[in-house]
C-alpha cells in the first residue's frame, strides 16, 4: 500500500499538470480606432516578442490606453487586427483573453470584496483549475507582498496595496502576456522600485507591455521603447538606440584653466574634429564643444592642453536625455 502511494506520488510529480504555451508574441497589424471623428489610433503596427518588456510612451491622449484596450479585447479596432500568440482578437477573443493579464489605468477594483475573495473570483473567471486556486492565491500574496493585508477588504487598503492587488489579479492565472496601463501611478518611491523589480522579473519569461509617462521608469524597466503621438509611432528602439538617433554629435562641456580664454577658444576651434565651440561661462573659462558627425574631440583637447600647459578642470559629456527625445518627437 505504502509502495503504491509513493509511486503515485512520483508519477504526480513528474507529469506536467497542464500544458503551457511558452511563446506568445503580440502582433499589432495596421490598427485604426476612431472615437467619433477623432482617430485615437491611426494605422498602428508593431510587435512584441516573448521575454521582451515594451515601454509605451506618449503624451496624454496619444492612444496608449486605446491600443492596450484593443489588445486586451475590451475594444474592437475599426480596422486592422491584433494577434496574440497567433490568435486573432477578432476571431477568438475569449482564447486571447485567457493568456493576458491586464492592469487597467486607475486600477479599478471591487472595493467591497476581501483581497482573497477577489483573487479567488479572478482565478475562477480566468479558468484556473479549482484545485490549483489556493496555491496560486498563496503565490500571488507572496509575490505581491500582500501577506499583512490579505484578510482586509480592498476598501481598507492604501493605494500602494490596491495596486498590488491589481497586479496580483492580473497575474493570478500565470498569463503569458502582461499588459499594464501606468502601473506605478500613485505609489511611493519604495513601492515604485519594488514594482519595477517585479516587472523586470516577470518580463524575463513573459511578454510585457507597460505604459507610462515617467520616462525614467520606462528606461529602468523596458527593453524597448515605443513612443506614440496622435495614434502613430514616432520612435521605436532600445533606450540607447533612441539616444544615438537623437543625439548625432558628441557634445562636451569643458572648463580649461591656466590660459587666456580667447586663446583657448581659438585653439579649440582649430581642432579638425570640432564643429562648434561656444562660451558657457566666459569668466570661468567654460566652453561647450560640439564635434562633427561621428567625430570625437576629447583626446585632441587633452593633447592640446598638455602642449599649451593648460589643465582641464571639468569635462562633462552631454547625453541627450530621453526627455529631450520625447519632446522632440511628440511636439510636432
Amino acid at each position, binding site marked *: 500500500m505504502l509502495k503504491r502511494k509513493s509511486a503515485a506520488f512520483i508519477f504526480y510529480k513528474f507529469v506536467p499538470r497542464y500544458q503551457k504555451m511558452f511563446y506568445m508574441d503580440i502582433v499589432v497589424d495596421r490598427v485604426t480606432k476612431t472615437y467619433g471623428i477623432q482617430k485615437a489610433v491611426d494605422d498602428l503596427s508593431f510587435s512584441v516578442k516573448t521575454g521582451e518588456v515594451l515601454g509605451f510612451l506618449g503624451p496624454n491622449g496619444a492612444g496608449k490606453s486605446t491600443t492596450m484596450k484593443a489588445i486586451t479585447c475590451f475594444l474592437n479596432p475599426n480596422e486592422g487586427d491584433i494577434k496574440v500568440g497567433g490568435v486573432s482578437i477578432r476571431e477568438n477573443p*475569449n482564447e486571447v483573453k485567457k493568456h493576458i493579464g491586464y492592469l487597467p489605468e486607475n486600477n479599478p477594483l471591487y472595493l467591497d470584496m476581501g483581497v482573497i475573495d477577489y483573487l479567488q473570483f479572478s482565478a475562477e473567471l480566468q479558468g484556473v483549475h479549482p484545485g490549483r486556486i489556493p496555491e496560486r492565491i498563496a503565490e500571488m500574496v507572496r509575490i505581491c507582498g500582500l501577506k499583512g493585508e490579505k484578510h482586509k477588504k480592498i476598501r481598507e487598503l492604501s493605494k500602494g496595496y490596491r495596486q498590488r492587488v491589481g497586479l496580483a489579479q492580473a497575474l493570478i492565472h500565470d498569463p503569458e502576456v502582461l499588459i499594464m496601463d501606468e502601473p506605478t501611478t500613485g505609489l511611493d518611491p519604495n513601492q515604485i522600485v519594488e514594482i519595477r523589480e517585479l516587472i523586470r522579473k516577470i518580463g524575463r519569461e513573459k511578454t510585457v507591455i507597460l505604459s507610462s509617462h515617467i520616462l525614467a521608469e520606462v528606461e529602468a524597466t523596458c527593453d524597448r521603447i515605443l513612443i506614440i503621438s496622435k495614434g502613430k509611432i514616432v520612435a521605436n528602439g532600445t533606450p540607447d538606440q533612441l539616444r544615438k538617433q537623437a543625439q548625432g554629435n558628441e557634445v562636451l562641456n569643458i572648463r580649461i584653466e591656466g590660459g587666456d580664454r580667447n586663446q583657448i577658444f581659438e585653439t579649440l576651434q582649430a581642432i579638425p574634429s570640432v564643429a562648434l565651440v561656444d562660451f558657457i561661462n566666459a569668466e570661468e573659462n567654460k566652453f561647450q564643444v560640439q564635434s562633427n558627425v561621428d567625430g570625437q574631440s576629447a583626446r585632441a583637447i587633452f593633447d592640446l592642453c598638455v602642449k599649451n600647459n593648460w589643465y582641464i578642470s571639468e569635462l562633462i559629456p552631454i547625453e541627450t536625455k530621453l526627455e529631450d527625445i520625447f519632446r522632440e518627437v511628440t511636439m510636432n
Partner: protein
Amino acid sequence: MKQIWIITKRELRAIFDSLMAYIMIVAFLGFSGFFTWLYGGDIFYVGQASLQTFFQIAYWTLFFFIPALTMKQIAEEKKTGTLEILLTKPVTDWQILWGKFLAVLLLIVVALALTLPYYITVWKLGPIDNGAVWSGYLGLILMSSAYISIGIFSSSITNNQIVAFLLSLLIGIFFHIIFGALAGSMTGTLGSVFNYLSLSTHFESISRGVIDSKDLIYFLSIIFLGLIGSEAILAKRNTN
C-alpha cells in the same frame, strides 16, 4: 454556464455583504405581510382561503424594489471601471448580463420563499387552491424577471445609479399600469395590442392559475429584449 455562475456568485455575495439583501427582504416581508394580514382589503376581509391579496401586494412591492436592486448592476461597474476588468477576462458580455440577472432573480426567489409561511397559514385556515398558489408564485417570478431585465437594461444605459433607478421605474410603469389603462380606454386592434402589452393582464391570468404559453412568451420576450438591449449598449463601446 460556469462563467455565468461565477459572476452570479460574486453578485450574490456583494448583495448579501452589503445589507442590501437583508433590508430588501425585511422591507418586502414587512410591506407584504402588513397589507396581506393586517390592513385594508386583507385576507380576512376577503374571507376566502386564497393568496390573491398577497400576490396583488407583492406585484406592487416588487415593482418598486427591483429597480433598487438592479440600479447598480452595470452602472456602478461602469463608473468604477471594474467593467473593463470583467470584460477583459474570458467572459462574454452576454454571460455577464445573465450572471447579474440570475443573482437578482435568486434574491427575489429567496424573498418569495420566505413568504411560504403565509401559504401554510392560509392552508390551515381553509381549503386552498394549491395550483393557483404555485402559479401565483410562478407569476411573481416571471414578472420579477421581466423587471430585472428592464432594470439591467436601464443600468447599462447610464453610469449614474439614480438615473438607472428612475429610468427602470419609468419603463416599468408603462408595462405595469399605463398600457393597461390605455387598453381600457381604447377599443379595436389598438385596444387589444395595449392589452397584450400590459404586464398586469398576463400576471393576472397566471396568478389565477391559468398558465398559457401566450403569457410565458410575453414574459420571456421582455426578459430577452431587455438583456439583448443591454448587450447592444455594452457593445456600443466599440462603435462610438
